[in-house]
């Protein structure tokens, strides 16, 4: 199952867990399942039905460009970090 690294400032929602295994074959499924297990997490990561524009999703160390649609392998490692744009950063 994919491993989701929980951002430090979200760990209050995950009983202090810094990393949890969550089922899902796409980012969307993983985030929905995360929300079921830890309510409130989706609102932090998403703006409506897409990844919040200030957040970058890393799958196995590589930033995905397709947000919620990105496919994740069974043993994928996911990170949610501030997005880095063309030298433009927002957080």
């Amino acid at each position, binding site marked *: 199952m994919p491993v989701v690294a929980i951002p430090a*400032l979200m*760990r209050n929602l995950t009983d202090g867990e810094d990393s949890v295994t969550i089922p899902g074959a796409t980012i969307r499924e993983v985030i929905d399942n995360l929300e079921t297990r830890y309510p409130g997490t989706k609102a932090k990561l998403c703006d409506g039905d897409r990844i919040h524009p200030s957040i970058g999703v890393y799958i196995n*160390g590589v930033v995905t460009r397709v947000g919620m649609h990105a496919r994740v392998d069974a043993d994928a*490692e996911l990170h949610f*970090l501030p997005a880095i*744009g063309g*030298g433009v950063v*927002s957080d």
Partner: protein
Amino acid sequence: MSEKKEYKVIGTRPIRHDGVDKVTGRAIYGADFQITGLLHGRVLRSPHAHARIVSIDTSRAEAHPGVKGVVTAQDLPEAEDKIADLGEGAVSLKYLCDNILASDKALYKGHAIAAVAATDPHIAEEACELIDVEYEVLPPVLEVRAAMEPDAPIIHENIRTSSLGETGDKPSNVASHIQFKKGDIEKGFDEADIVIEREFVTGTVHQGYIEPHNATALYNPDGQLTVWCSTQGAFTVREQLAEILQYPISKIKVVPLEIGGGFGGKINVYIKPVAALLAKKTGKPVKVLMNRADVFEGTGPTPASYITVKMGATKDGKITAAQTSMAFEAGAYPGSPVGAGAMCIFAPYNTENVLIDGYDVVVNKPKTAPYRAPGATNAAFGSETVIDELAEELNIDPLEIRLMNGAKEGDHRADGPVFPRIGFIETVEAAKSHPHYTAPNGKKHHGRGVASGFWFNIGLESSVTINVNPDGTVNLVEGSTDIGGTRASIAMQAAEVLGIPAESVNPTVVDTNSIGYTAVTGGSRTTYATGYAAYEAAQDVVRQMIERAAKLWDVDEANVQFTDGEFSSINGKEEQISFRDLSARLGETGGPVVGRATMNPAGAGGAFATHVVDVAVDEETGKVEILRYTATQDAGKAIHPSYVEGQIQGGVVQGIGWALNEEYIYNDEGEMTNASFLDYRMPTCLDLPMIDAVIVEVPNPGHPYGVRGVGEVPIVPPPAAIANAIYDAVGIRMTELPMSPDRLLKAMGKI
């Protein structure tokens, strides 16, 4: 991809395609643009760092002979309480608009208040002085620590500190707080035999591009808006104009002219929307130019910062814990690169226990903008100085301690993600084996220092089309503005695929109506991502040319192969035709061939650098002289080595300026007192030795030729490397940037 691949074009040093235009003065930069009926615009700027705008009366200016129009924030569409998604992260539209023309408050000296269009630039300037603005002056907040005090004057009543969606309950100048946590920081410090904790302060610095901002705008009667300008990204200008002017993207064409440097500072728009407003008001084309003081005071510099770094290591040099708190000045509106700084600060080291806090803080200074590896230089000044001190205390060679702790493929970055193949260790080894590192350097007050740096690099969108000409050359159309030779580095990648010389590819940078979306020239992405698109577009050409050859020979496409610029048939018929000869026969085989590709590649691969510097410190004057400089950097694969070296040398020298001289000097009223090139002292060639750029090539698996972006990381190590060299020379740890003569004399107890 093998590490020792033979290339014909890649790795060579052809003359750049735009070279002749640029050495003969013929290249047209933004300010050079001319059009019939042109009016000239100038901007009136706030003399106060923090003031409420009580009233603006433009009547005297409007009555001035030669004046054709005056605009203020009133002429901007109402900015709803909306987040503008510029494809570069989220930005508040209200802030975006207010930074173009202040509506209710002036938030920094130099903040644009109004603008005039007139028949002549001098008249426009005179008319600016005839605009009567009544201000209620407010106390300015000028420094990040002061801004964080609980009783600091509040700059924006509506800002509450946000921490990943949580918002504070009272107004604050701290716009956001971020945190990265890995392992157990307390345990890490417990395991350490030695712990060092230091505070660092860095000043506000400017990108210092030589060409001031410029824009010429024209509205046609059908509502079509055209903007000619120099910019790092025509498409981001189009997006920003569409948001700020609330105008359809389909009615905006942005024409990027040649650009005289950007370094991150020419992504955000300033006077482009102003030119558009003036053009709309006057019905004429309007050119707005900044002067140098406008550039310093009215565009985004990179933040001043206050950083604490605490690191622990065992006796044998293993770093067990790394902690930092970084507060960055965002300027007048939220959005400093503290996030990037926080993600870079400990990235070169594989450390088990890490705690990073970052704060984005508003102050009464210009809204900051990206500058070459934004945030990473401030960060590395802290971390790389502390590591030097650890090495010294533990009696370990400073490059050795980096080798012992250096991050490798498969290690986790401090902020989480796993590293793909990276070349950090290789850069340290290259520095260690360089003759510079072992050369004698024992003179009194001479010192040697080293430091390393990391920058992410990015991918993002790029589009390329390639049209095949009948003489076997191709025209390559791209949307990446060329700031440092990227026409060449992109064209070379297409040439390599097509088996033709670099000179046979004619690259052209076009406007937003003429190519698919292409993100900014920034983030060290252009040779990587647009180069990747050129590679794919060239592959598309090859596929189509194979079809043509198959048609010509009446064979199956599967039986045509393409190697070294030659198409040949396999299995049966002995046929062969060169790319050039086949190009002449496109007419008879089905017409023109156009290859195209759009990319948004994910595997930019990180960039690392390790620098070695020798300095001499003059004890009498406090002046630091750079005696020798060697910069090693992993370029993945250098497409055009001369321009890779150039990026490294240019970045190093900007870093030297940041380290030794450059800063915005403010008085208590928040006025910058050195807003000229004379007083904001950037390095000249007399201040410098040759810069030895050593290219290390650890191919990036995320690019067909192994390219990594090279533009940004070279600015990251210099301030720390120089601070470490100064320590080696005179035994004093400098923790404040710039390390100018007065600071050095003070630190040495001379004044």
